């Protein structure tokens, strides 16, 4: 692995992220709307379960949503790079495809984690009490989940050549991934087919792991879907698989 190449791929993404502040604000608008408007609305219908109101229940899901959107958006900028030619500059360099994929995945990880941490910092407004350990653990899970989803985004990006496919990715990948992730309702409550699909979704495990950390007292109908360890193992293994497939797909030549 070429560390210089990984570093510079990440630095490029980070520089652009810092330069376009408006991108950060519009990216944060989505989770805020869901948390304080959709969440607040639905919470009127859903009774408090073992001391956890609905707005707190969806908080891990909203963190997951923040990561989902920003990681996938970051990774599918590869399609943009392909369309505008910059990808060739990277591909023709003496850099292994593995390094390129790791660099891209880490780019998404940093950008996503920053956004997730900003949303996480809102916990006091939801009446949550988190200690330093909980916060640190939540951040670590956010980092792992961001990496995993960014790597998935890279695999998705290798299937598309033009940015016109953006709405396809949005409507047929990102939105279903969000709705079938246990973010808004426990996976257990879904019909069997949807439960099955949800269990194939790495985001589901990430969100479940965050629930374990920041909602330790949750129980009853809102309870966890998996054990903490299962979730962690799934996130880590799928990350490795996605990076592997991403690198393979990058190696493909016509």
């Amino acid at each position, binding site marked *: 692995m070429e560390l210089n190449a990984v570093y*510079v791929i990440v630095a490029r993404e980070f520089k652009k992220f810092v330069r376009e502040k408006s991108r950060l604000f519009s990216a944060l608008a989505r989770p805020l709307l869901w948390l304080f408007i959709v969440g607040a609305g639905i919470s009127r219908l859903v009774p408090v379960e073992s001391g956890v109101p609905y707005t707190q229940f969806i908080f891990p899901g909203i963190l997951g949503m923040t990561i989902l959107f920003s990681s996938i958006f970051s990774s599918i900028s590869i399609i943009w790079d392909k369309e505008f*030619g910059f*990808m060739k500059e990277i591909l*023709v360099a*003496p850099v292994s495809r593995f390094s390129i994929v790791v660099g891209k995945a880490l780019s998404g990880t940093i950008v996503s984690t920053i956004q997730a941490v900003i949303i996480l910092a809102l916990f006091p407004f939801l009446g949550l009490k988190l200690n330093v350990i909980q916060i640190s653990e939540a951040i670590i899970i956010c980092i792992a989940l961001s990496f995993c989803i960014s790597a998935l985004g890279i695999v998705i990006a290798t299937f598309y050549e033009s940015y016109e496919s953006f709405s396809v990715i949005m409507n047929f990948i990102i939105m279903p991934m969000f709705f079938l992730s246990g973010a808004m309702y426990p996976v257990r409550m879904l019909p069997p087919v949807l439960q099955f699909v949800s269990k194939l979704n790495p985001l589901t495990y990430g969100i479940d792991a965050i629930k374990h950390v920041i909602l330790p007292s949750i129980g009853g109908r809102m309870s966890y879907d998996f054990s903490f360890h299962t979730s962690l193992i799934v996130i880590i293994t799928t990350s490795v698989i996605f990076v592997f497939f991403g690198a393979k797909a990058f190696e493909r030549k016509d």
Partner: protein
Amino acid sequence: MSHSESNIAIKVKNLVKRYNHILAVNDISFEVEEGTIFGFLGPNGAGKTTTISILCTLLSATSGNAYIAGYDCTKYPSEVRKSIGIVFQDSTLDKDLTAYENLVFHAYLYNVPKSEIKNRVESVLHFVNLYERKDELVKKYSGGMKRKLEVARGLIHKPQVLFLDEPTLGLDPQSRANLWDFITKLPKEHNVTIFMTTHYMDEAEVCDKIAIIDNGKIIASGSPEELKKIVGGDVVSITTKDNLYARKHIENLLKLEVLEKNNELYMTCNQGETCIPDLIRSLGDKVLSVKIQRPTLNDVFLKLTGKTIREDYAPESNSTKESIRAYRRKH
């Protein structure tokens, strides 16, 4: 001249690239010596970019071999990538970064030692006269500035071979001239072999060696001078007081075939310079004017394929057109 293998920067043997049923590159072979400028000339769709893509490891060949600096492009892509710099036909700059950032990005990708990055980036920026504007976003650059920046970028990692795919595409004549000015300096100043493609025939004059490609096949190769010999000499045209007399005289005494058009007499001579004194000597004061036209590479292409390299590309002047017509009639 004979050269050992070690002086060969690029070697291509029986290269074929097939896209489904399109034969983009059809069994081509050539060699490029170190430190020379090699021109790949051909019309749109001839297979120039396809060949470059294979040489720079972005595309795999259907069959045949390609070597850069002795490394097989298929077996040792990473060695090949280290040895080459490339300016693609379409821009590959990141327009949302500054010129400086684009260059630093490149330096890191190519693992240039950290202590040298600043020096090298600044020196190539000076080389293309963009140092003053290095901190502007590339999207604010003009087409010519972008092109120069790309050439500069291709030099940062000190490649042995620099590929230039239509480097002057879309530039105005002055920027084209400027760009050629420093491209021709590269082999000496940066110790690099240049492989360029173009379909502006006049630009290919700077090449040491040229291969003309059409429909995926190399139809001729050699130095510009050698290629022009294919045309069969210079075109000399004269006007006289008495065309009938002059014509008979030239045909009998100088054994040249003469064509008459618009009161002008055209003939092809091996050596225009020696032909003109002969003409004047034999025709005396009947000669009113003499014009000599060197064959252009366009004439070569025309002669070989029966079409100009870009049917939509107008020759520079009417007189060139005239000479082309003259050749066409003659051959």
